[in-house]
């Protein structure tokens, strides 16, 4: 594998609140190679969005390192960070909130170029038109305001903005969750086309396993601020090892009734425990079907059970 474009190491993001310290992200390590799509899945509240926003340096991480193209950016100031921003961009979840309602689409797309001092006014105009074309927007759209567009089109605008600075990695934070089912596929296909054409890497955050399976090369599963399993897509899909991953897989609907009938349902009981006070030892043990008392004593590290397949569970064995 070539040297990673983004390398997170023991990244932690804790938020002090009145009720105590929320450990939204608590020691996550993962590498993303150039051109690779890594899917990040987990229940709502598991910290996956916080992980994306921390990697994006929207906040300063509590601990750990973020290396972008080999350079440490976790402790850079906002002005020192600016040149690095162009390599790493983000597509937001809510296309209704992520566009400034007062700016025309053209201006929204031009802003990143202005901030980074790219080109003359004429060159920027050409670049904006190229971007619009790239995401399938008509040139007339550039004169309009966001409220004149549907959710799917707005998300295209958001994607075009993320591409304006020619990033190498785009963090997609639930990019299709807020969209109608009918336009989800279009937006996902657009993202895949762009990846192929521009050689982008994605960190694709979603709670929807079927979407993540469709787009990802590798998938990371997150539970309560920690990664519990990382594997390439096929392995994770066919041989999930962590009991949490197995439960997630079991919850994905199967189209074939015959297959659905002989599937052994793994049911998760209860809700996600509070990240204010995570269970001792293995965080999943309170809902785990195979937990034993020892699970409360030691936090299981991510260990390789097969090449490229990491699992954070002491109770499962490799092949």
């Amino acid at each position: 594998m070539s040297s990673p474009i983004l390398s997170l190491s023991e990244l932690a993001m804790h938020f002090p609140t009145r009720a105590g310290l929320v450990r939204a992200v608590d020691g996550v390590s993962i590498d993303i190679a150039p051109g690779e799509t890594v899917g990040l899945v987990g229940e709502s509240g598991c910290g996956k969005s916080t992980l994306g926003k921390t990697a994006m340096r929207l906040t300063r991480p509590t601990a750990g390192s973020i290396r972008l193209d080999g350079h440490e950016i976790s402790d850079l100031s906002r002005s020192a960070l600016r040149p690095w921003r162009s390599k790493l961009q983000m597509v937001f979840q809510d296309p209704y909130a992520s566009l400034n309602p007062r700016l025309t689409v053209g201006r929204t797309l031009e802003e990143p170029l202005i901030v980074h001092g790219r080109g003359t006014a004429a060159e920027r105009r050409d670049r904006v038109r190229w971007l619009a074309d790239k995401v399938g927007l008509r040139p007339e759209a550039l004169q309009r305001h966001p409220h004149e567009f549907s959710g799917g089109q707005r998300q295209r605008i958001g994607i075009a903005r993320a591409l304006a600075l020619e990033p190498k990695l785009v963090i997609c934070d639930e990019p299709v969750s807020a969209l109608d089912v009918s336009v989800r596929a279009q937006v996902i296909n657009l993202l895949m086309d762009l990846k192929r054409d521009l050689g982008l890497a994605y960190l694709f955050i979603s709670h929807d396993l079927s979407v993540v399976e469709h787009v990802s090369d590798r998938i990371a599963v997150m539970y309560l601020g920690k990664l519990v399993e990382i594997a390439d897509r096929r392995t994770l899909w066919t041989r999930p090892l962590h009991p949490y991953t197995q439960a997630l897989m079991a919850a994905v609907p199967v189209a074939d009734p015959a297959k659905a009938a002989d599937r052994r349902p793994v049911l998760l009981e209860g809700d996600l425990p509070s990240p204010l006070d995570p269970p001792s030892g293995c965080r999943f043990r309170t809902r785990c079907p195979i937990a034993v008392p020892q699970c409360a004593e030691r936090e299981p590290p991510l260990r390789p059970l097969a090449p490229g397949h990491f699992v954070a569970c002491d109770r499962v064995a490799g092949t």
Partner: protein
Amino acid sequence: MKDFLRRFARNKAAIGGVVILLVVIALALLAPVLYPDSPWDMVAEPFLVPGADRAHPLGSDMMGRDLAAGIFHGARVSLVIGIVATLVALAVGVTIGAIAGYYGGWVDNALMRVTELFQTIPAFIFAIVLVSIFQPSVTSIVLAIGTVSWPPVARLTRSEFLTLRSREFVQACITIGMGDLRIIVLHVLPNALAPIIVTGSLMVATAILTEAGLAFLGLGDPNVMSWGTIIGAGRDVLRTAAYVTAIPGIAILLTVLALNLVGEGLNDALNPKLKNR
């Protein structure tokens, strides 16, 4: 913009307000044309009742000064002081509110404590104190009114910024690498402007009232005649010549009413969703 104008035009009361305001503005603009001489000049016999003399349709006061000239020139003074004082208050209030709301944390805490400190002092009393310390002049009156009226603007701006800064488009600005000043001025402020404009239009009315109150108490600029100055002068003859007080009083009443109607109309037109409350 077109939608906004159409919604505004549908509001009859607001249009009425605009008409009255245009009349007041016309008075102010025509003052030097129709009454080129100083309104302080004694040009008629004293206590001329309105309508008694064609040359002085609104009559004269106890010194024989033409009340119509006073109303025309007073419109200039009242409008200018009202608008400039409001601009001063908006400049201070929006800046403080924007910084507090955008940065939050201890910056917000510190700025809001200062704002509350200003709010605990009754506005009119505070204005009297400021004007009497700095000698009555148009400048000191404008600054005094601005000083006592910025806190509500700061609080309003802060609350708008608090909700807007967590919106994803602001985060998108940060991921682009935009500086704070550009985010605040170009991206957040335009989205917070609607309620600030509405408050501003109502503040002009309050500022005119405050100026009139100061002038009534003898704290007006002695070199310019505002509506409040005429009322203050007419106070002594309230029983014998009530019209001296009533005429500028009606002018103030109509102007303040008009500004309130316009403010309400702006509010409804800028927030169409809240209209059918």
